[in-house]
């Protein structure tokens, strides 16, 4: 069992090993977080926020903590397939949550742009890291976030100075390798865009071998005035043995823009929390999501958009396609606070069930404390339209092809929102492959 005691042991090992290297503020942050974790423990379905996602299957494993690099290092060839073709920007590679300088290349980043490992940044740029670390992803209520915070030691640190910009997307590649048994890796990422800066970041999760593992990731994003970030998260963990729990916290200042795209393609169980605070006037966020859920998988997206100040805008479109015996959860909360006049909030979640055994729990929620706002939300769970299916077949397309086309058509609008060509094309390929897989599996039955 994965319980608090082995975590405590690992925590002591981490403290001992890094005793001399780590700044005292971090030591105290970790301790507070660990103590909070021991109070919270892991969530259970008795908690409202975890009603539909039971993490007990993952707690059955004896995960070892990944604190040091695995002995058998990877080569560039081994991870080549994780590159997105057509991307030419910086690539930071992390193996089991730890930065691998050998596999990474930052090329020539424009001036004012930093992309480095968090462990280095904690030493070299404490002035940039410390004021923001653990401020945007609170650990008081989520045991996983508390555990991640207690073990903060590596991940990505991206910083754009005032007015700077990075044209090419920065790609963060997280790979889990489990040569010596079940493993937990806990990347901690911090992305800070100072006033008027702009960037695009892709955060991808992959795996190499077949043992059970848990990725428990936390990403904090701070967007200062007029800053603009395009943020893509690609989760492609092992659908049989990979568990993925992640919290992304976003804090937006005046007139900043946050565009996100969450792509869930893998994991036996995924829980994704995305919390956006529109903390100042005129801030804007667009949240897109696509989840493809196959037999045996459980994918849960929880999002919170908090309109705190006037004239904030949020647009959310999440779509899911499910097949086999699978389950998805969407829980989207939008708060419009008393002070948030002229807020504009739109939230849509749509799900397509390709099998009778697939199920979705969707719950869009609006909580509005101001009259002067424009808010809409909607959720749908449905199957392929029989009339549309007949229409396609009546033009000569066979049943399988017609279903694939309609399914692809269902996802097309959200896929087309991806603004990085490489991501959009990859996603398109992934969807076709996912549909094809089904047929291959069907044929062998």
């Amino acid at each position, binding site marked *: 069992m994965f319980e608090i005691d082995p975590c405590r042991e690992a925590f002591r090992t981490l403290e001992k090993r890094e005793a001399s290297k780590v700044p005292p503020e971090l030591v105290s942050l970790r301790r507070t977080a660990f103590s909070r974790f021991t109070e919270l423990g892991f969530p259970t379905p008795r908690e409202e926020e975890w009603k539909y996602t039971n993490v007990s299957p993952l707690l059955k494993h004896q995960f070892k903590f990944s604190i040091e690099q695995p002995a058998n290092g990877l080569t560039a060839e081994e991870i080549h397939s994780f590159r997105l073709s057509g991307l030419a920007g910086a690539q930071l590679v992390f193996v089991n949550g730890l930065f691998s300088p050998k596999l990474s290349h930052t090329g020539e980043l424009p001036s004012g742009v930093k992309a480095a490992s968090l462990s280095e940044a904690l030493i070299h740029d404490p002035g940039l890291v410390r004021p923001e670390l653990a401020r945007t992803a609170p650990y008081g209520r989520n045991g996983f976030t508390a555990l991640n915070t207690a073990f903060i030691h590596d991940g990505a640190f991206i910083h754009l100075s005032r007015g700077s910009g990075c044209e090419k997307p920065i790609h963060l590649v997280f790979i889990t390798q489990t040569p010596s048994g079940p493993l937990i890796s806990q990347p901690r990422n911090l992305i800070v865009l100072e006033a008027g800066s702009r960037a695009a970041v892709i955060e991808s999760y992959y795996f190499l071998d077949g043992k059970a593992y848990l990725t428990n990731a936390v990403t904090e994003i701070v967007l200062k005035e007029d800053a603009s970030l395009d943020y893509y998260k690609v989760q492609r963990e092992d659908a049989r043995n990979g568990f993925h729990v992640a919290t992304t916290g976003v804090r937006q200042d005046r007139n900043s823009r946050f565009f996100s795209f969450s792509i869930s393609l893998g994991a036996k169980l995924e829980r994704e929390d995305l919390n956006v605070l529109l903390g100042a006037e005129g801030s804007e966020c667009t949240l897109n999501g696509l989840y493809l859920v196959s037999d045996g998988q459980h994918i849960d997206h929880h999002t919170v958009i908090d309109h705190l100040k006037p004239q904030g805008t949020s647009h959310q479109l999440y779509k899911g396609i499910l097949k086999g015996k699978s389950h998805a959860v969407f829980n989207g909360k939008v708060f419009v606070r008393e002070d948030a006049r002229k807020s504009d909030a739109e939230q849509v979640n749509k799900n397509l069930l390709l099998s009778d055994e697939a199920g979705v729990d969707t719950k869009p929620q609006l909580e509005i404390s101001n009259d002067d706002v424009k808010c809409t939300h909607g959720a749908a769970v449905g199957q392929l*339209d*029989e*009339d*549309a299916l*007949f*229409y*396609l*077949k*009546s*033009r*000569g*397309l*066979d*049943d399988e*092809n*017609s279903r694939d*086309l*309609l399914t*692809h*058509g*269902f*996802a*097309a*609008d959200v896929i087309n929102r991806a603004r990085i060509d490489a991501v959009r094309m990859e996603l398109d390929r992934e969807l076709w492959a996912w549909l094809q897989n089904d047929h291959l599996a069907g044929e062998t039955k």
Partner: protein
Amino acid sequence: MLEIRNLHVTVGEAGIEILKGINLKVGRGEVHAIMGPNGSGKSTLARTLAGHPDSNVTQGEILYEGKNLIGMEPDQRAREGVFMAFQYPVEIPGISTAYFLRAALNAVRTQRGLEELDAVEFLGLLKEKMKIVEMDPGLLNRPVNEGFSGGEKKRNEILQMAVLEPKLAILDETDSGLDIDALKVVAAGVNRLKSPDRSIVLVTHYQRLLNYITPDFVHILLEGRIVKSGKKELALELEAKGYDWLKGEVHV
């Protein structure tokens, strides 16, 4: 080309009998009009020929080029050269009209033993075909029928017919919802697609369409049976006298 013998069809789960013994022969290259009031079974006949899953054939035969269509999947019928223009074309989100047309054409070409067309070859062909129905090229990149006007949807149906080159085309109330200008364009398109190798079945409520497309034969459908057949003059007679004129024929 097509021979329907004593066709009985029920529709839906309730199993209500809509077609009660249809007999019809359509020769190669002929144009037949099937006229009837609302509820007479016209659309059910068209949908049955196309293989709609809601139409259950309980009796009879549909022979197309000597093959029995009953039990054949709609896509197989289409690849064999049967085409139905829908009364209410369906909107298909997320699939562009051009992509859809190419996929359909290639499915049909494969069946005919022809090579598939690539995007460039197809676009060349499509440009020619679009002239037939004077269709706005801007619609090609839009999802199939999504946001199309009624007239654009009907043109798109005839465009699909032009691209797929069926041997048997069934046009289900292609005139409904069209203003006179759009009707002329659509009718002219159909006329250009007439050929000695292509039979056309026009299903319509009104005689109006037949002012522009001249049928070789006219059949009147009432309460699930063909009660009268004749030449094109029958349509004019019907227009003058109304369907009530034939009510007495039903139970004969």
